């Protein structure tokens, strides 16, 4: 892995001395930068980002994704196109070597991920997006970790949005079904009352019925005024609800436009939507 000798465990699988469970891959937690005022532009934009993991090769090449107030922006593209990487880059979980990330009139490129949470960004990763050993309620509490005020009303809102979670609030989140886990994951991100919500394939691995339900909930969240930036495998369904769409191919912007435009674009249809 990227030739770092410290990351070579020489095939050790002895769990009695080494505990790989839950170890992180995110970079930039120790970044110490400050936000710089940069007025204008969309609410959240990853502007011509180039970067990759660790000291490895670039995965993103001059890639731009943005979302504005009251919008849903959707990133689609084939496997390995760098969709998740672009999301992580916007959240600061890997080093952006060129380009900038701006949020609400500030340049936050040099901010650590935990500082971006305080700035009002919420992120739901694609995998391992809940604390499996903690109860549903504790998951939500952890979502509200940075809040020092009383967050019981936000928790009530999350329970209103996802009623099933209220019934299961004292159950370990790891015991829930796939769809319920995704609800916990989105609920956790909502607990900070984010100014922008980023979802990485929220419907991955859930049944079609649950998927429709999740899409409805996401639209419901967007209606409360939170802009949503979302990566989605179900390109057609996602583009239908999108105000803005990006098609990434090999880390580059291939097409972008409104959701309707992309759905109508014959090239996009042929390559990504199956005709």
């Amino acid at each position, binding site marked *: 892995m990227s030739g770092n000798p410290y990351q070579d465990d020489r095939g050790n699988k002895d769990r009695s001395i080494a*505990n790989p469970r839950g170890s992180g891959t995110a970079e930039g937690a120790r970044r110490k930068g400050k936000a710089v005022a940069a007025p204008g532009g969309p609410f959240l934009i990853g502007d011509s980002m180039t970067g990759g993991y660790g000291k490895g090769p670039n995965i993103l090449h001059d890639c731009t994704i943005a979302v504005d107030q009251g919008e849903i922006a959707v990133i689609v593209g084939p496997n390995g196109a760098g969709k998740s990487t672009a999301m992580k880059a916007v959240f600061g979980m890997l080093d952006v070597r060129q380009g900038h990330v701006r949020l609400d009139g500030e340049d936050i490129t040099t901010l650590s991920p935990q500082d971006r949470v305080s700035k009002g960004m919420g992120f739901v990763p694609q995998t391992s997006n809940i604390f499996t050993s*903690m109860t549903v309620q504790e998951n939500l509490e952890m979502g509200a970790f940075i809040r020092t005020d009383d967050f019981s009303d936000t928790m009530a809102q999350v329970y209103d949005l996802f009623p099933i979670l209220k019934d299961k609030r004292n159950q370990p989140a790891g015991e829930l079904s796939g769809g319920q886990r995704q609800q916990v994951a989105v609920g*956790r991100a909502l607990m*900070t009352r984010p100014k922008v919500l980023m979802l990485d394939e929220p419907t991955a691995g859930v049944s079609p019925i649950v998927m429709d339900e999740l899409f409805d909930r996401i639209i419901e969240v967007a209606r409360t005024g939170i802009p949503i930036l979302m990566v989605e495998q179900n390109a057609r369904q996602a583009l239908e609800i999108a105000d803005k769409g990006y098609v990434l191919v090999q880390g580059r912007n291939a097409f972008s436009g409104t959701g309707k435009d992309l759905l109508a674009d014959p090239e996009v249809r042929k390559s990504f939507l199956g005709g």
Partner: protein
Amino acid sequence: MDFLNAIVALTNYVVIPAMSYGSQLALGALGVTLVYGILRFSNFAHGDTMAFGAMVTILVTWLMQSVGINLGPLPTALLALPFGILGCVALVLVTDRLVYRFYREQKAKPVILVIVSMGVMFIMNGLVRFIIGPDDQRFSDGARFIISARDFKSMTGLNEGLAIKTSQGLTVVTAVVVVAVLFWFLNRTRTGKSMRAYSDNEDLALLSGINPERVVVYTWLIVAALATVAGVLYGLDKSFKPFTYFQLLLPIFASAIVGGLGSPLGAIAGGFIIAFSEVTITYAWKKVAVYLLPERFEPDGLVQLLSTDYKLAVSFVILLIVLLFRPTGIFRGKAL
């Protein structure tokens, strides 16, 4: 009467020593399990961290004794304990800053950290011997017994005496208090929950705005406090010798693994399992047997399964059995 005598003998020679030894192991294993669960490696330097904390406590105890401060019937070391904890906290935080942090930044694999902790172990080992010397040190004072064997005999009229040392009573009480506070902290407080969250899923903790470096610092604080308490209690109960603390590593790891690494509850259960096995297997059962069996079955030998010299082998065998048949431990570890 014989039956009562047998019970008293058993309590005196097996139950009470094993209870206090088990509490010491449990406290040690809790520290190991916290490092394993949150920092994700097995800390081989834990025995020597205990020795360092105990050493600082001993030095402060001697200072207090020399100026005449004492706690009456309780050992002066209790007063010195906070200073020992502070010293130990300073040591582990400096170690983390100078050594472990570099490897965290490299995102080093846990097995690399295990080897690093061995290096740290040798340094701490040398440091302790350099400061206080390799010899036995005694630092307990105050009343020696809560109940002495003679008092017990005159009180009850039994042949067998039951002695409870102050250090033994203190050990069990302290262990209960410390464990209760630790569990309350991990399950009820915001910081404790953030530590569990970090243990569960490092990236997601980051995404929730939890500062990983702060979690690491809190973990070391707690581990240093647990190690010092365990080290001082062990030293009060037996005596302080750096090499013994290094040797304690095996029963402590055995306890943590038997209970399930990463599970605090498991660490406690494991500590008592190891302690009771060690003591019962190395105890000479003749006395109890004489009381319980009819005269013609009276044993000739000591009825001791294993010489006390081999007590470390007991933890080792239990460790092997658990790793063979239930590698995740009794409490299915891996989670805080």
